[in-house]
């Protein structure tokens, strides 16, 4: 096979791959955020094999240690059921995290970075890794 045909085939394959992973409510801005996270993940671990909605779900629901005692889980504020609204510690409503219910989720890079920065620190006492972030967004985009 000639080189150019090989490239064409590979890009065709990755296109179909992409199409399979893309959730119903596709959003170029959200895809770009995920692509950046995937690059970061690959840099940290060359064996990185893609984000996983299942891992994201487990991470979202888990009780973590190392963070603030009042907020052991993402679900301490975001609702257990991501299609439902959550509530802050001061009682303010938080709109659902699931993209199906709230299409403007995860499509503004500054917001995403700001809140990952804050909330990962509150819950885990550290930054989230690129894989954790990507899994989280992948899970909620499919929800």
């Amino acid at each position, binding site marked *: 096979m000639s080189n150019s045909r090989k490239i064409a085939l590979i890009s065709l394959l990755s296109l179909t791959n992409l199409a399979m992973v893309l959730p119903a409510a596709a959003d170029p801005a959200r895809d770009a955020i995920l692509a950046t996270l995937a690059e970061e993940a690959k840099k940290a671990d060359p064996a990185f094999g893609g984000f996983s909605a299942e891992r994201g779900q487990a991470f979202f629901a888990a009780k973590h240690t190392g963070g*603030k005692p*009042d*907020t052991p889980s993402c679900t301490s504020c975001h609702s257990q059921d991501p299609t439902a609204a959550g*509530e*802050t*510690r*001061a*009682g*303010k409503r938080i709109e659902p995290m699931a993209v199906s219910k709230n299409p403007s989720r995860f499509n503004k890079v500054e917001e995403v970075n700001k809140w990952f*920065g*804050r909330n990962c*620190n*509150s819950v885990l006492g550290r930054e989230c890794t690129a894989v954790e972030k990507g899994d989280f967004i992948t899970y909620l985009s499919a929800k």
Partner: protein
Amino acid sequence: MKRLALLSTIVFTLGLSGLRADEGVKVSPIDHAATLKECGGCHIAFPPQMLPSRSWTKMMGDLANHFGENAALDQAVQDDIATYLAAHAADAPATKGGARFTKGLGADTVPLRITETPYWKREHDEIAASRFSDPKIKSKANCIACHRTADKGEFLEGDE
């Protein structure tokens, strides 16, 4: 004589209830986009008029440790908000009637909570502690659970 007494009781009661109906405290609502956005995500953006400027300055200097949470912002946004809050604080020259909010507050105390100022405590001293821990209210800081238009700077008689 008796009639007069009755009449004045009625007038007095009417007068009182009239007074109560339009009782309430109003402050200028926040008209600063950054403050509304960045200080309104976890609770309502609280009225700057209800704390002295020294309180806002201290709070804005340590947003990474904000009541057990991290509310940190980029330096430029933080400075912009700090300036706005200080300019509209209880003791800012432009704030009308701000003195009532700091009445009873020692000049060298720097409260970080509105709910810990003598003013706020006086206004809420008849409310049972259990009201605030009610799951529908959750916190004293959830002003809008009782004052439905608190985000417009209106603190009318706490409706349920």
